């Protein structure tokens, strides 16, 4: 498997896509080491860049006084935006110009990718003049537990690499948090370190807290101080259930105004979710109370929008979902507010039009749980969402691709995400699969176990007509699989192994007959109702089957197949990763019927690489109502394998 990541034109992936990017014929051969000079005010950024390069293990970067191959300069030229930069790479090296440290930092992130995603120590010639489309490019994530801090720092570094500049940190109840800051020195230190770490990467932390009443507003100052924040996102939890008809909005506006004044007095800004300030979600409604077994009335609050200060930032959660307002940003803009799109998984519907307004400052993606094992638990996969969002907010003029599953980036960019996602996931989690380290692949011949054709005459045409797979091509950087072995007529001949449902309980004894460092399975979940794993608790991960690995010496090993982690429904966003967050997309595209599909491979490291594997079983456990379609198995081994 290769270690470089290219766009379809064969040039290193640069993400987010720069505003102006001209690839030239120049080439710079690094030959193992680079030298750098940076103007004094950009030294910190240059050091971070050097550290990041060092960590890749590909090369070292030495600072020098003059004649360096990478020169980071301050430009006095007009026309530079605060975060913008100009990067020119050619035969003689790289010159990066910016007017601010943030611009230099962004340019260095691009340069890092230019080097890290390239091949064999080469910097491709390019001329980039870049600047962001939107100023608020965020990701929302809960405060990590202490044991997850190393992961969290890697995550922040990755977000900065993709030019995210706001980290909305879910901190929970403001009062409880303030108490922790008072009493727990360790927590305070962690908060300050986190803030410093993010700040060095030009990411502003936006603490997101819930506030039971306006009386506790004073707590916010300590929180803002601890995290070095100048903006707080506050969720006022009082629903004013006791308020008289028509008074709840006035009461909410009063509290917000008081809170705003308290924060403003301390030089802090306020951001509020749109949920209670927009008619689609803030109108009078009934909510079932499980305790009383009755419906409670939640009074209308949306009228408060006309009563609160206009410099409050609205976190627009009304742009999508079942109660979407397709012009939510216009609603708030007409009332004089600036907004950011909240909880985005990609471009919001009608992105081109809706993002164009000056009052839309940006957007953010949301990760529900900040720990490695939950990376993919957003269903819509937060990592992919962050990559999408960072791109749409940086590069102006991107068109959203509206699909039945949501809005995506243009196909070419989704394909780049499909390449970047597994790499970033593995880096975040500190994993390297054997396939990333080895170059030997051996396709296992499972043709005699094929028990299902791509097209069944009795299958429902819309969901289970997979004839298009016969010509599907592997994505770049995917483990190779030998597919449809021996199949001449795809209409009638069995072309893959199907396990589960009323079909069978599993398929047993598929011979491997070799040693392997790992086994990769190309599989998908079919039949049954497609279920999205989503981080909001709708559907939990479910074990839908197991792979049993039998060794020649009689020993055996078992790997659970977890829906949403290891396997996903075949109908999926093309290219990107949705739902099978530990798996890698291999076959992806759009069928003739317009269905987006992605088939994932899951690689399991073999605990006994020196023992010969005799056979493999695929067994279903019935956790869901579908079946497992197994298209191929590949052993990852030395170069001599077949």
């Amino acid at each position: 498997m290769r270690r470089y990541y290219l766009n379809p034109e064969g040039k290193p992936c640069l993400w987010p896509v720069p505003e102006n990017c001209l690839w030239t014929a120049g080439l710079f051969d690094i030959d193992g080491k680079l030298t750098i000079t940076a103007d004094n005010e950009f030294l910190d950024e240059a050091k971070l860049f050097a550290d990041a390069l060092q960590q890749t293990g590909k090369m070292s970067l030495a600072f020098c006084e003059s004649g360096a191959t990478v020169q980071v300069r301050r430009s006095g030229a007009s026309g530079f935006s605060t975060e913008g930069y100009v990067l020119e790479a050619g035969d003689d090296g790289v010159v990066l110009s910016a007017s601010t440290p943030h611009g230099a930092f962004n340019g260095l992130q691009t340069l890092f990718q230019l080097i890290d995603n390239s091949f064999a120590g080469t910097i491709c010639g390019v001329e980039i003049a870049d600047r962001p489309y939107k100023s608020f490019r965020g990701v929302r994530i809960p405060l990590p537990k202490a044991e997850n801090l190393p992961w969290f720092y890697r995550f922040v570094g990755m977000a900065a690499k993709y030019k995210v500049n706001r980290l909305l940190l879910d901190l929970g109840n403001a009062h409880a948090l303030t108490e922790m800051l008072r009493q727990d020195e360790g927590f305070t230190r962690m908060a300050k370190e986190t803030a410093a770490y993010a700040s060095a990467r030009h990411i502003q932390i936006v603490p997101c807290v819930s506030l039971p009443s306006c009386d506790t507003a004073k707590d916010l100052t300590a929180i803002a101080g601890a995290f070095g924040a100048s903006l707080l996102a506050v969720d006022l939890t009082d629903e004013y259930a006791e308020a008289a008809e028509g008074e709840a909005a006035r009461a909410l506006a009063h509290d917000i105004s008081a809170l705003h004044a308290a924060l403003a007095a301390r030089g802090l800004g306020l951001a509020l979710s749109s949920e209670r300030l927009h008619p689609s979600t803030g109108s009078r409604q009934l909510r079932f109370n499980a305790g009383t077994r009755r419906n409670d009335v939640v009074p209308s609050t949306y009228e408060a929008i006309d009563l609160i200060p206009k410099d409050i930032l609205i976190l627009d959660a009304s742009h999508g979902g079942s109660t979407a307002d397709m012009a939510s940003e216009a609603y708030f803009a007409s009332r004089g507010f600036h907004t950011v799109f909240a909880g985005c998984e990609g471009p919001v519907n009608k992105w081109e039009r809706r993002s164009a307004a000056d009052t839309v400052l940006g957007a953010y993606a949301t990760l529900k749980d900040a720990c490695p094992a939950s990376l993919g638990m957003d269903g819509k996969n937060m990592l992919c969402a962050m990559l999408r969002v960072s791109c749409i907010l940086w590069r102006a003029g991107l068109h959203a691709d509206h699909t039945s599953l949501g809005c995506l980036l243009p196909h070419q960019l989704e394909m780049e995400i499909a390449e970047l996602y597994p790499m970033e996931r593995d880096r975040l989690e500190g994993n390297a699969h054997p396939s990333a380290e080895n170059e030997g692949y051996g396709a296992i011949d499972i043709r005699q176990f094929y028990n299902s054709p791509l097209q069944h005459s009795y299958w429902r045409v819309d969901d289970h007509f997979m004839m298009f797979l016969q010509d599907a091509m592997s994505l770049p950087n995917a483990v190779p699989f030998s597919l449809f072995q021996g199949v001449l007529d795809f209409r009638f001949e069995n072309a893959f192994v199907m396990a589960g449902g009323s079909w069978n309980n599993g398929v047993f004894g598929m011979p491997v007959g070799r040693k392997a460092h790992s086994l990769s399975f190309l599989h998908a979940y079919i039949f049954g109702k497609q279920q999205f794993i989503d981080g909001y608790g709708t559907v939990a991960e479910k074990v839908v089957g197991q792979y049993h690995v039998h060794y020649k010496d009689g020993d055996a090993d078992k790997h659970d197949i977890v829906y949403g982690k290891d396997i996903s429904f075949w109908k999926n966003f093309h290219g990107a990763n949705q739902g099978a967050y530990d798996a890698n997309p291999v076959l992806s595209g759009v069928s003739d019927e317009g269905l987006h599909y992605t088939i994932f491979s899951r690689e399991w490291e073999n605990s006994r690489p020196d023992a010969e594997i005799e056979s493999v079983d695929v067994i279903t456990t019935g956790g869901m109502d579908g079946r497992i379609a197994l298209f191929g198995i590949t052993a990852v081994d030395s170069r001599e394998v077949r």
Partner: protein
Amino acid sequence: MKKQVLYQGKPAIWPLPNKCDWGDDFLCLPYALSLKCDDCFADEAELFMRALAGDGIAVERATEGAMIRACLADNCSIYEEGYLLDVSAGGILLQAGAPAGMFYAFQALTQLIENSEGGCVPYVKIEDSPFKPVRGAHFYVPPRKDLPWFHRFLDFLAKYKINTIFLEMGASMQFDSHPELNEAWEAFCGEMRAYPGGPDSNHWGDRGMQMLEGNIKNSVHIENGGGSYLTKAEMAEIAGLCRQRHIEIIPEVQGLSHSYWMLLAHKDLAERNDDRYPDTWCPSNPKTYEIYFDCLQEIVDVLRPSTVSLGHDEYQWVGVCERCIRRTGHDIFAEDVLKCHDWFKERGIRTHVWSDKFYNLVKKDEVEIGMGSGGGKHLNFNQRTMKNELVKPTYRALDRMPGDLLLSDWYYSAGPTTQDMFNDRGIKLLFGNFHPGSFHDMEARLRRPNVLGAEVSLWHETSDLGMTMTDNYAKYLEAANILWHKGYRFKKCEAYNRVISQIYPAERDRMNGAVSPSAAAPEHRFIDISGLCNAPLRNRKDYGFIATAEPMPNAIPFEICPNVSDIERDAACLLVGSGEAERACVEVRGKYRSIAFLHSYTAALAGPPAHACTYSGAEEDIVGHYVVEYADGSIVRIPVEYSRTIYTCGSAYAFGAQRANPVYQQREMNESVEDLAFYSIAGTGETNRTVFAFEWVNPDPEKEILMIAVTHDPEKPGGIVLFGVTGII
């Protein structure tokens, strides 16, 4: 005439060394050089001494006080092919860590001495090693008559650090186990030479050999072995010469497809038994492999290769026989390669195949017809049956290929990431049929970790004749530099081409065992054609640049338009044809060892196709004649051959008339920007103008030449433009 070839004012060493620090002073060499050499480099030293002896420079072995010392390097950073060369007041020191490195050090030193003026070599420190490990050439087995030339050709390749040759074997080596293959091959080649239109008659509607089965089969290659075969002793000698010169032979023993050589005598093994000249074997017939492996064993015994190519390109009859019809193309292709791979692996030999059947270039919703789809499912229209025939896809065979397979990626123009598809599977490759001009993003793609190098192919007879049918002399030199010199940049290729233009005529003459009179005798006399001039320089083509351009270094001098002040209007050259007179006479009156014609052709003709048979259609390239009339009344007719002795002026340096030498050159770079979806790509185009001089060697230099008539074939579309004539005394 100055003989030294310079690059940036210093003696040219080709390919350019990767690190080269020139000093200001010179080391003046004595008449006889002395060489002290470590024993491990004795063979390399011997070849070096022989090469310099050919230049008239004597080198003696010495034990002490030698001018040249060749030592085993104590520097572990010098790897297999790397070397150090240090010329200083203390003499010349060569260091290498292995014989190949020392061999290349000697090649560099040979050129340094050849290209230094007056026997004084400038001080220099060279630290050199190759950019790419595989720097290759591909050709057929040479004809027996051309073996002496071929041996010198190997010297040429080695001198410029080409280290790999793919030798297409066919039945051009004597097979003891299957002499019937040699016999059938000779008979077939004889038949094809007599076939109307030759073996490459393949136009639609043409009922020539290529269309007998309705489909183009391609790659008949009757030039292989000159249409015959060499003995094992001759082949072993070639292998020995290659080993001495650190050239690895990769025999290409075409299997599955293009297997005429085997099937002509065993038609029962063919995939189609209704084919008079079958070229595809049946991979489901075990007997196929019995014969193939017999032949392979003999080839392996003689050549002792470490890699063997199976060919496997342009496989068109995929699983059509009764034995194969129930098998998929993917399986057939994969299992055929794997069967051979296993055979080689048992013998410690690496397997090579061409890559085209591993691509799927069929676009969604499109029906591809013809070979351009690579290994994708496509249709071939059969001219005989007038039906479309399905060609089964083979591309999924790639997913079963072993990681130690070596490929030649020759569909690199199909997209910018062809090499990366193979790298995803851990497979190494080289670019086959390497042609930098048609290669988008070549410099970056050569830097991919799985790209080991490239090879330049010759699809003509392996001889001077075949070489000059194309631009191959120059192409080898160009590729040698691209693959060795890491600092190669396309934008500098004007400077590179100036060097190539000076090297190749001399090397061509050396390989032909002839020194041109202009190189041996510096005296010349301009032959006045001004009275005949009938066209201005800006006429059918823009030749205006030669009025002011500097001639190439080492070029034969010409008197160009001596009385011309206005190149737009004044007649400055003689145009014959192209609507003007079809004949003109130049008065000579003198004895000359050779006559050089500075000329150009106004029309761009197709020239010999890169893949057409060398033996067919050469007469189509003759656009006219120079008819030399001696005082005794005898006459010599010199054909003016397009792409060999004359060319249109739109070529780049050496890439034009291969038997002529470039004299005037102009190059303009055009920059362009291609806007893609999310970014732009800068590109460069170029406009080149070159005028060549063809030197005709007078077979009777003692006889006085009265005149030379310039005649043009009225059937040809252009005209011959003669700018000057120089006689070598």
